[in-house]
Structure formats: C-alpha cells, structure tokens
C-alpha cells in the first residue's frame, strides 16, 4: 500500500526520481500502443461491417473520433498539470504540461484533417464554418499559443507559470467543442455515445473505436514520457545528478 502514501508520491514527483521511473515505463506502453493499434485497425477495417449509406469512407471514423476525443482530453490533462504546477509549484507537473502540448496539437490536427477528408464525401466540402469544426480549430490555436508563449519566455520558471495561466483560461473552449453539436444546429453529427441511452452504433464499430482510443492513449503516454525526460535533462542540466548521468564530472 505504499502507492497510497503521500510521501511516496512526493518522492516520485521529484524529477530526479521520476526520470528513471519514466525510463522503465516507456517500453511497456510502447508495446501496448503498438498491439492495440494493430487490433483496432484490424477490427475497424476488416471486422466492422460496411456502412449502408456511406460505404467504406466512414471507416475514417476509427481514426477521427479517437483523435478528436484525445485532442480534448489531452488539453484537459495538460491544463490540470499546469494548474498543479502553478499552485503548488511542483516542477515535474509543469514539465508534464510542456511535454503533453505537442501531442495534443498533433491529435487536434489529425481530427481536423481526417474530419476535413471525411467532409468531402459526406458534406461535399472539405471545410465548413460549423461550430464544432471552428471550436476544434480554436483548440489547435490554443495549443499553438501555449507552445509559442512558452517558447517566447526565457526563464523556464516564468514560462511555465505564464503558459499555465493561459491553459486554464483556454479550458473554456473544451465544453464548447463537446456541446457544440447540441448548442447549434451543426452539419457535424451529434454524439452517438451517451451514457443514458446506450450507444446507437454497431458493437464491433464501437469496440474498434474504443480500442483505437486506448491505443492513442498509450501512444500519448509514451510520447509524453519521452519528452518529459528530455525536458527534465534540459532544465536540471546544472544539478549534480544530471551531471553524473551524462558523465560530466562537476
């Protein structure tokens, strides 16, 4: 039950301690990511039935939806880490926020791109100024803002605190994305997964989507860990332990 004790977390959340832990975790999640992706794609593209109105093009959904979900989820996660870093100024959580941003931006872009790609056959246009599409686009800009603000400030401490505040402010956009389909009469189709009245779609499709989502999750974790390790080295480069690690005698 060490996991539950506070001291344990304090230890682990010290960059020095976390660095090797992250190193150990990476291979596992890499494996998970690869396996789930393969399974998910197989189910999505071979097991799941052809859609009776959209034909094969609908299969984009297996990339699009998980990507879209991740884009929002990662932003929330990033904002939480940033907030923790801002309030209790714990160095590691700020670093995690920094490490998550690019992955989030990537998934946002994928959601936009696959969506646009999908839009052509279904709506006859790559892009329409529809509430959901727009708010997703804003999400991309928010990621860009977060990244460029951090890049623009020299002092890492200040940089992470400033961008944390920005991330928190930008949080308002996420519910807008999610509920846009409810609030406006959008071209984009509404949520077909709701907790109250089950799901409206084929079971295999649903499973394929969920599996892809978990695959993306695993990928996110891997990417974040890899990046956070780099960030740790970069920011702690003057501490002894990094010195020893890199074999630079102090």
């Amino acid at each position: 039950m060490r996991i539950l004790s506070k001291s344990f977390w304090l230890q682990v959340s010290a960059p020095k301690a976390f660095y090797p832990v992250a190193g150990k975790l990476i291979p596992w999640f890499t494996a998970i990511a690869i396996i789930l992706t393969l399974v998910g794609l197989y189910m999505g593209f071979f097991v799941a039935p052809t859609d009776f109105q959209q034909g094969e093009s609908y299969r984009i959904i297996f990339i699009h939806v998980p990507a879209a979900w991740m884009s929002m989820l990662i932003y929330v996660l990033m904002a939480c880490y940033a907030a923790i870093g801002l309030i209790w100024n714990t160095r590691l959580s700020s670093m995690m926020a920094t490490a998550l941003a690019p992955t989030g931006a990537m998934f946002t872009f994928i959601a936009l791109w696959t969506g646009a790609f999908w839009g052509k056959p279904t709506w006859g246009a790559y892009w329409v100024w529809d509430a959901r599409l727009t708010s997703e686009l804003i999400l991309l800009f928010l990621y860009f803002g977060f990244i460029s603000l951090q890049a623009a400030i020299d002092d890492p401490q200040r940089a992470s605190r400033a961008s944390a505040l920005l991330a928190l402010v930008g949080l308002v956009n996420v519910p807008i994305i999610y509920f846009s389909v409810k609030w406006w009469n959008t071209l984009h189709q509404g949520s077909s997964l709701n907790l109250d009245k089950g799901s409206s779609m084929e079971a295999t499709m649903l499973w394929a989507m969920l599996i892809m989502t978990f695959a993306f999750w695993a990928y996110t974790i891997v990417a974040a860990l890899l990046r956070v390790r780099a960030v740790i080295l970069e920011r702690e480069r003057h501490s002894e332990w990094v010195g020893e690690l890199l074999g630079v005698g102090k």
Partner: protein
Amino acid sequence: MRRRAEVLTVVFFFVIVVSLFPLGVGPEIETLRLIAPGVIWVAALLASMLSLDRLFSADYVDGTLEQMLIAAQPLSVLVLSKILAHWVVSGLPLVLVSPVLGMQLGMDVESIGVLVVSLAIGTPVLSLIGAVGAGLTLGVRGGGVLLSLLVLPLYIPVLIFGAGAVEAVQSGMEYGAHVSLLAAFLITALLLAPWGAATALKISLD
C-alpha cells in the same frame, strides 16, 4: 483631452473598416445587410486588439506597474480600472457609432437595436479577456503579435454569439439565447479576468 483623441481614432478606424466592405461587395444592399453584423463585430474585435498591447506596457517600462503591485489597494482593482479605461476607448465608441454603421450597411431598426445591445454586452468581455493576454505577454519577445495569437481564439466565442444574435433577429429567429449567453460570458469574465490579469502581471514581474 487625450481620451477624446483616442476615441476619435477608434471611431475613425471603424468607419474605414466598415466602409472597406462595400468596396469588395459592391453596392448590392442585400449582401451588405447580410454581412453587416459580422463585419461590425469583427471590427470590434480588431479595435479591441489594436489598443491591447498598450494596456500595460508603458506602466511596465517606467516602473509604475511595480508600484501597483506593492500598492495598498488590491492589484485586481487597479487592473479592473485599467480594463475599464481600455473599454471606454476601444469598445464604447463602437457601441455609440454602431447604429450609424448599421444604417450605412442597410440594417433595419430592430436588428440595429439588437446589434447595439450585443455590442454593449460583448465588447467589455473582449477588454477583460484581452487584459489577461496583455499581462501574460508583458516584456516578451515579439509581444504584440503573440498577444493577438493568444487572445483572438478566446475572442471567437464572443464573436459567434454577438454576430449570431443579430443574424438571428435578421432571419426572424429567436435571439434571446445568444444575448443571455453573452451576458453569462460577461459575468464570468468580470469575476475571473481581473484576478487572472493580476496573476499574469505578478508572474511577468517576478
């Protein structure tokens, strides 16, 4: 006296922006009426942004900001007063001239009414949100544009509902929802933004 000059420019700016569109669109009053709300609202956004990077920078350079941080009254109050001043020169003028611009673009009386209301509620939100951005980008490389990069996305919801309200009434639909959402934004912004901006300033001065 200085204020009056500033207000004048902003008004001037609006007139130019708004009169640029008939140029592209040509005189068809139909199209003009169609795009009027959007154009005016975008003008509002841009005007708010134009003056944003001057919100704190002068005080930052000459050390007044330090004095504000260690002043006896809470920083957020001082910040709020600065935000108010910003709105008075960037937002209020538009609210006042918008009826004229609306007519120029061939809007009917009712829509103009809604336009004015939406602007009156919406533009303060712009100044409030903007202040946070201004605080964050203080003394940062490439400040002005970075600022707009941060702020514009957050402006967009305001724009959507503001212009949306007017378009709704123009197409004879229900606009109450839009306006009340704007009001909700305003209240939230009023509660959070001054505090946010104050925090941002503290961060940038540390």
